[in-house]
């Protein structure tokens, strides 16, 4: 993939900002009604402060993570911030993303989020869309599909993961206070993770 990392972050940021109200509304039903607002504030600042000409993908991802940690405010700050910083470490000094890089980034992101959030799959969190997405991505790459098709599979799996979060109760974060009443609503974090992956897919499709 060609190196226009700022443009990729821009597509992600705009998708999150466009869906701010929906994400906040989901969080109103099972949390503290700030997920979309917090994430949109973070990405607005990211788009404002990132160096648009930097082609070092790792550096841009790390900078994105730092700004999100600094400006999001809620738990999604450290979680998404850690995710970007882990991905940035994988991409350090690189100007292109290969299929192996994509796998390595997703693996590092999942490890970082699990550690930071002390969470596992099945607890109604962002991991419930990201882990199936990673598995689908790996399956596609390992079977020799081209990367764009793999990203499509990745998003389908993430979307199914979001649907799955409707069927389970939350045990992490503010939503855990609701117990069984959290069933029926899709997880806001899993949803913003899906939007992130979809934005990456849409960006890559145009390359």
């Amino acid at each position: 993939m060609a190196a226009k990392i700022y443009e990729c972050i821009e597509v992600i940021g705009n998708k999150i900002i466009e869906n701010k109200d929906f994400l906040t509304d989901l969080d109103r039903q099972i949390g503290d009604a700030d997920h979309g607002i917090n994430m949109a504030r973070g990405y607005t600042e990211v788009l404002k402060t990132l160096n648009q000409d930097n082609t070092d993908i790792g550096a841009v991802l790390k900078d994105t993570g730092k700004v999100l940690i600094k400006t999001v405010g809620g738990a999604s700050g450290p979680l998404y911030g850690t995710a970007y910083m882990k991905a940035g470490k994988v991409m350090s000094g690189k100007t292109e993303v290969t299929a192996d890089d994509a796998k390595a980034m997703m693996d590092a992101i999942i490890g970082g989020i699990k550690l930071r959030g002390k969470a596992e799959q099945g607890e109604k969190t962002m991991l419930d869309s990201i882990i199936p997405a990673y598995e689908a991505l790996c399956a596609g790459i390992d079977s020799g599909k081209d990367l764009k098709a793999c990203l499509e599979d990745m998003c389908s799996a993430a979307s199914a993961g979001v649907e799955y979060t409707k069927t389970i109760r939350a045990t992490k974060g503010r939503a855990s206070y609701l117990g069984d009443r959290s069933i029926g609503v899709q997880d806001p974090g899993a949803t913003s993770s899906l939007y992130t992956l979809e934005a990456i897919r849409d960006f890559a499709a145009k390359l």
Partner: protein
Amino acid sequence: MVGIVIVSHSAKAAEGIRELAMQMASPETPILAAGGMEDGGIGTDAFRIQTAIEEADRGEGVLLLVDLGSAIMSAETAIDFLDEEIDVRIADTPVLEGAVSAAVTASSGGDLDEVLAAAMEARSMQKLS
């Protein structure tokens, strides 16, 4: 002396708790507030917490008192960001009462284990006898 950092979603809450804790401590006790976000909004910021930890450290470690939810995650993120080797603990205790107890012990020269133990006593503190 052991340092103390108060982490809250609200800058005012963190500053207020610091003020109460300082009342019980000698003036040189390093108690810092790391509340809210740079733009004045409600939230926690791992970088603010990191800076406060570094400023509070006198070589004998730092105790963090935290409020709710993401304050803990931000505190842990801050600890990961530290460049220098600082012994940092998070006290799983009510933030205000814990800070006051910790301040007294830190001020009288207690080590990090003792300051943490004092903060933890706040969990079982009875207010009405």
